[in-house]
C-alpha cells in the first residue's frame, strides 16, 4: 500500500515539476490528437454536410457503411495503415512508419468517418426552415448549406470534441504506427501501456491523471457548448 502512495506522490512530482520526459509525452499526445482532429474535421465535416443535403438512391447504404466504419477497432485501423506504409507496402517509399506523420494518418482515418457521420446528424438536426429561409432570401445552394452549417456551429464543435476524445485516448494506432519512440512518437497511452507492464507505476499514474484531466476538460467543453445552443 505504501508503494502505491509513494508512486502517487512521485506521479504528482512528475506532473508539477514538468519533468522533461513526461512533458514530451503529453505534448506528443496532444500534438497528434489535435492534428488528426483538425484533418478529420477538414475531411469529415464537408462530407457530413454533403451527405445531409444529398438525395441519391443508395444514400441509406452509404450511411450504413459509415456507421459500420465507426465500430472498427483502433488496432484494425492501425494494421490497415501499417500494411500501406511499411517499407514493403505501396507507400513504403514515403517512410511514414514509426513517425508522427504515420500516427496522425492512422488517427485521422479512424475519426474521419465519425466526424462525417456526426456532422451529418448535426446538420440534419437543424430546423429545415433555416435552409428554406436561406434559399428564399436568394442564397444559392452552396451558400445555403454554409448558412445551415453556421447554425449548427455549436453542434459541430461538439463533434470535433468528440473526435478528439476518441483519438487522444487510443493506443492501437499510436503503438502500431508510432513505435513508442522516446521524444518522438511516445504518447500518453503507449507510455502508460509499456511502463506499467514494466512495473513502473509513477509515470503511468502521472500520465493517467493527465489523461483523466483532458477527458474532464473535453466534457466540460461539451457541456458549455450544449447550454450555449
Amino acid at each position, binding site marked *: 500500500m505504501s508503494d502505491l502512495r509513494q508512486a502517487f506522490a512521485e506521479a504528482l512530482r512528475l506532473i508539477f515539476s514538468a519533468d522533461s520526459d513526461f512533458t514530451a509525452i503529453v505534448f506528443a499526445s496532444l500534438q497528434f490528437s489535435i492534428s488528426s482532429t483538425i484533418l478529420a474535421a477538414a475531411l469529415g465535416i464537408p462530407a457530413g454536410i454533403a451527405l445531409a443535403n444529398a438525395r441519391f438512391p443508395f444514400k441509406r447504404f452509404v450511411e450504413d457503411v459509415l456507421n459500420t466504419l465507426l465500430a472498427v477497432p483502433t488496432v484494425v485501423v492501425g494494421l490497415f495503415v501499417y500494411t500501406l506504409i511499411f517499407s514493403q507496402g505501396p507507400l513504403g517509399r514515403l517512410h511514414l512508419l514509426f513517425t508522427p506523420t504515420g500516427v496522425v494518418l492512422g488517427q485521422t482515418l479512424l475519426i474521419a468517418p465519425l466526424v462525417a457521420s456526426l456532422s451529418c446528424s448535426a446538420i440534419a438536426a437543424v430546423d429545415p426552415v433555416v435552409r428554406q429561409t436561406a434559399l428564399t432570401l436568394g442564397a444559392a445552394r452552396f451558400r445555403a448549406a454554409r448558412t445551415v452549417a453556421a447554425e449548427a456551429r455549436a453542434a459541430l464543435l461538439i463533434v470535433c470534441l468528440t473526435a478528439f476524445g476518441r483519438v487522444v485516448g487510443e493506443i492501437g494506432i499510436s503503438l502500431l504506427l508510432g513505435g513508442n*519512440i522516446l*521524444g*518522438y512518437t511516445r504518447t500518453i497511452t503507449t507510455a502508460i501501456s509499456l511502463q506499467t507492464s514494466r*512495473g513502473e507505476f509513477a509515470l503511468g499514474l502521472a500520465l493517467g491523471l493527465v489523461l483523466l484531466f483532458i477527458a474532464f476538460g473535453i466534457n466540460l467543453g461539451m457541456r458549455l457548448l450544449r447550454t450555449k445552443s
Partner: protein
Amino acid sequence: MVPSSPIAGDNPIGLAAVIEGRAADHTVDVIAVGSGQALKLAINGDVDMVIVHDPAAEKQFLEDGWGINHKTFMMNDFVILGPQSDPARIKGMKSAAQAFSSIQKTNSLFISRGDDSGTHKRELDLWQKAGGKPAPPWHMEIGQGMGAVLTMANEKQAYTICDRATYRSRGGQLNLKVLVEGDPDLLNYYSAMQVNPTRFPSAKNILSGQMIGWLCSPEGQKRIGAYAVNGHRLFNPTCEGGKK
C-alpha cells in the same frame, strides 16, 4: 495437482521452449520480460525463479539478499546489426565501443530497447565505453522488446545491438546484416537464480532448485547446446561438464 512455477526471464527465443520441454511433469510459466523487470518481479515475490543476463544487477540482487543459488549456465553473444549501406562504416570493426563511437559521430540511426533489459544495459555500457551520451533524434529508445526493436531497425534501416539467438530466429525476414561481432565486450552470459526462501517462504523452493540443477546438468546442458533454429545453434552451455 502440481502447482505452476513462474520463471521470469530475459527470454531469447528458444530458451522458453527448452525449459518448457523439460518441465513435462509440472507447469512452468515463463514470463518473458527484460532482466531489469524480471528482477523487480522477483523482489515483489511474483516469481520463483529468474533467468537473466545482467551481471551487475545480478550481483546487486544477491548482495541484497533477494536471491540464492546463482548459476551461470549458458552464454551467447551480442552482435551489432545494421543496414547493408553501413553509413557509419563499422563493418568488420573489432571493437564494439569503437563501432558505437563511429555511429554516434555520424549521427546514424540507432534503435535502443530503452527498457532496463540486459541487452539495454549492455548497450549503455558500450556507449559509456565509447565516451558519448547518445541522444535523440538519431538514438531512438522504444521501451519494448527485441522483436519490436528488430522490426523498427529493419523498417528504418538503422543500427542496433541484438543477441545473436534472437537475430537468427528472425531468419530471412530482416534486411539487416551482422556488422560487428566477436568483441569480448559483446559476450552474453545467462544466469539463473531462485528467490530467497527465507524471504519468500511460499516460493516453490525445491522445484526452482531442481530446475536450476537441471539447467546445469549434463542432460540440460546438452539440450541447451543442441537447441537450434533454422539450423543455427543459439546458445553455448557453460557449466562444468558441459561443452564450451
